């Protein structure tokens, strides 16, 4: 853009925020509202029930899930470290820790279904699988995208903007989980 004033050179500036990052922030914005809606409905339905969770349902594995949660949080730290250097190594660590979390979620879901907690067994079961399942799907998709980043990094074609956007998504997945854990498990 040429300046209208004489003597001034054309004004240019560097990229402040990459387009991928802006797009991801808007996407995360909508995702936050999605999970806020889930939690809002869960809270309202739960507060109206005489006993919540309903009597006779299998107990949720609070302790083991806390350990799996720790793995997820550590993976967030590993992704943060991957943005500062040794990207390949830290991404590998993050994927391994995230894999522990997702595998545990699947194992837990199978065990709970076998114990009688299903999507249709009660409102609590329906909400549990909707909220925790939606988060697990997000974690799985984020893992696939992180794997894509790792693959691109090994080939030397990982763009900083894309990598930053993926990291933001992973921070969202990691940061959301303690909120869901406190609301659903505790």
């Amino acid at each position: 853009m040429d300046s209208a004033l004489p003597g001034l050179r054309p004004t240019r500036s560097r990229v402040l925020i990459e387009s991928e990052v802006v797009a991801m922030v808007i996407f995360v914005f909508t995702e936050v509202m999605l999970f806020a809606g889930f939690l809002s409905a869960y809270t309202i339905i739960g507060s109206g029930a005489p006993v919540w969770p309903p009597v006779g349902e299998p107990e949720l594995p609070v302790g083991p899930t806390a350990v799996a949660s720790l793995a997820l949080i550590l993976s967030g730290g590993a992704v943060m470290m991957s943005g500062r250097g040794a990207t390949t190594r830290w991404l590998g660590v993050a994927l391994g820790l995230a894999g522990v979390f997702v595998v545990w979620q699947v194992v837990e879901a199978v065990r709970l279904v076998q114990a009688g907690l299903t999507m249709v067994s009660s409102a609590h079961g329906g909400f549990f699988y909707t909220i925790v399942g939606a988060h697990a799907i997000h974690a799985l998709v984020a893992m696939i995208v992180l794997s894509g980043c790792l693959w691109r990094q090994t080939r030397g074609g990982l763009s900083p903007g894309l990598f930053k956007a993926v990291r933001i998504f992973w921070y969202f997945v990691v940061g959301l989980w303690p909120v869901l854990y406190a609301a659903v498990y505790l």
Partner: protein
Amino acid sequence: MIRLLLPLLLWVPAPAWACPSCFDPKDSRQSDFLWSTIGMSLLPLTMMAGIIGWFWWSLRRAPIENSAGAASAGASANV
């Protein structure tokens, strides 16, 4: 007909309390429903304020390049 019904509905708001989430305005859900509504209303505004603040902070941090060297920087702002 609507001219007659609308003032009547506004005059008697009690039926409007029977929303599908509360079921009963007197039960314990009402306060949770209220706080949930407040939270869900404030959350997008808070996030919007955060994003705008982040853009503003990024703009403030960015050096204004208005020199000959800037023209050769080769990059253009897209935000």
